[in-house]
């Protein structure tokens, strides 16, 4: 009986067969490949150039792979490239950037997460107005505020210091980060917060023991935003940090735009790649988490 039913099966049955490449897919993938190739081309040129010796660069075949691979330009970019009077390479800028990046990221995210949490759950009188002002702040072009901030920092005695740039990064990161965290926490059911209150937990305990453990994705998003944003910053670095504290981006500019001597394209390429390495690595490592975090905020908020 059962057997006969099996033998008599017609039409679709069992696992769905995998689709073979259709014409539509070929066009689609073809387009994607071309687009990817187009965007990757400059990167390719940079990499091959940075691995060539100066004589080979002068031959002008920018697309040809290096005939003789050399890491000399990389070492020079890192260690001995000249920016104006100093010839200490990019490493000075790298460490300056690290010194700016870590405190700025940690402080701004710490404050913004508490802000977002407070704005979502502990509404105080005027919290809506506060939030509106903050939102407004996110859309003001910050060039407008450059000079007033110079004066403020000078009065605070922080102008031309690491502390000054860190403060500036924290201030300018605040609106968007607070918005990010507020929207995330707004998606957390209010009943969870109420339950914790009935259980006797206060402001900090609810934040640390209930909210923090469940907001990892949004912290990842915030970290990525801040790390890439602060690392890539040029404007604040050149204005507020002072010559001894120039971040990597400013130093890169100084190396590339040096007017003395010959243009060492290979060193410039290597220096640029070194400067861009950190954001690239961050994206590659955390791309998936980033998308997940953004999606978590977007769907629920």
């Amino acid at each position: 009986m059962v057997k006969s039913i099996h033998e008599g099966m017609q039409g679709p049955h069992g696992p769905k067969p995998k689709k073979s490449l259709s014409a539509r897919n070929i066009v689609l993938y073809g387009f994607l490949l071309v687009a990817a190739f187009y965007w990757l081309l400059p990167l390719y040129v940079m990499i091959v150039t940075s691995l060539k010796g100066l004589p080979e660069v002068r031959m002008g075949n920018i697309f040809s792979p290096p005939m003789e691979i050399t890491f000399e330009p990389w070492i020079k970019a890192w260690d001995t490239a000249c920016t104006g009077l100093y010839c200490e390479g990019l490493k000075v800028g790298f460490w300056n950037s690290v010194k700016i990046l870590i405190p700025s990221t940690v402080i701004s995210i710490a404050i913004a997460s508490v802000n977002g949490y407070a704005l979502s759950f502990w509404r105080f009188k005027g919290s809506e107005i506060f939030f509106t002002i903050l939102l407004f702040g996110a859309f003001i072009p910050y060039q407008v505020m450059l000079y007033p901030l110079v004066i403020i920092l000078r009065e605070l005695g922080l102008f031309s210091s690491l502390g000054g740039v860190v403060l500036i990064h924290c201030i300018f990161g605040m609106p968007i980060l607070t918005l990010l965290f507020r929207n995330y926490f707004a998606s957390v059911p209010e009943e969870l917060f109420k339950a914790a209150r009935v259980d006797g937990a206060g402001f900090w305990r609810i934040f640390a023991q209930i909210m923090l453990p469940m907001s990892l994705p949004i912290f990842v998003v915030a970290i990525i935003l801040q790390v890439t944003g602060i690392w890539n910053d040029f404007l604040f670095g050149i204005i507020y940090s002072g010559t001894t504290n120039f971040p990597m981006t400013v130093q890169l500019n100084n190396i590339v735009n040096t007017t003395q001597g010959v243009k060492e394209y290979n060193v410039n390429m290597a220096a640029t790649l070194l400067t861009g390495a950190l954001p690239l690595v961050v994206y590659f490592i955390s791309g998936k988490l980033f998308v997940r975090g953004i999606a978590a905020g977007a769907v629920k908020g």
Partner: protein
Amino acid sequence: MSGEKVSGEKLHGEKLDGEKLDGEKLDEEKVSSDSVTSVAINDLSLSFGSVEVLKSLNLEVEQGEFIVLLGPSGCGKSTLLNCIAGLLDVTAGQIFINGINVTWEEPKDRGIGMVFQSYALYPQMSVEKNLSFGLKVAGLPKQQIEERVQRAAGILQIESLLKRKPAALSGGQRQRVAIGRALVRDVDVFLFDEPLSNLDAKLRTDLRVELKRLHQRLGNTMIYVTHDQIEALTLADRIAIMKDGLIQQLDTPHAIYNQPSNRFVAGFIGSPGMNFIDGVLEQKSDRWVFNAGDITIPLTDYAFLQNPQSGQPVEIGIRPEHMFVGDAAQGQAVVFSCEADLVEPMGADTVLWTTIAGNSLTIRTDSESTVKAGDSIDVGINPNRALLFTATGERL
């Protein structure tokens, strides 16, 4: 736990000395009455901006009583519960729990436990941690925490789930854990905000029975918000019917069903709802009758709550189960014939829809009834079970 009546002061003192649940002492304001009510709400008002949600609301709940707050969506049930829990600041009025004025107290200091519709379990904590969180916050010794968690888990039969995260539980299990979280805190008053409404019908019935057992076993005061009439009627010692931030009637389920104090309560309770027919009251010799078109209903034994006036416009309310068709109709005091518009089989019984004097009415009949839509039927009314309402909706 608090089965026998203890004075509020004593109860409170015990909690402080014996268990050190609260870190700080409350300033104790006693109410003047002798027998301490479990929860007393005096002239409570609450507004969100210009929207007045609770309007000078009064409610007294006895020790160990199971009170159900029932009302249409948006009438302020959750708001009232949140006020009792201390999760919302009241605009005016007072709240007493066990005779202590808690109007300004923090939720944790009120001796209440709350269970939410969405369970609100801490997602990153295991069931055990969920249960013990409140106790840890209160700074109880480890061993005592352990004991209480085990006890609550035993009562709710969730011992085997203690190590799991909430995500790995079914809806019913989650709600059990949520109840457990209130249970471990050893509170006097339980507040439930639609705890069963996220569950499927079968589970809801099961947990409803369990809740009733739990109440019988613990004897705590319970205040329970629901949309579900069956839940209200089966669980409650007394039901408070709410509308627009006011309690319309607070009474036993029997009284709410049979002696509703106004048209709103009458229409709200019962499914299908009470039938209403517009008409006028008339006095014939010394008998009162209700007239609507060609229908006359004698009100021989009607117990008027107010002085009736002849010619007064009224509405008569008759429950679908007090209207009869077929043979049963013949014995009734009022019989008229009409047409069945619609037939709805509901399983245990069948509901007929018909139109009388321009009013759409429902009649509950036996499920064996053979009436089909379009059939002409004789409808009998038992006027002794009918209720009269004035034009303003009050009981007459």
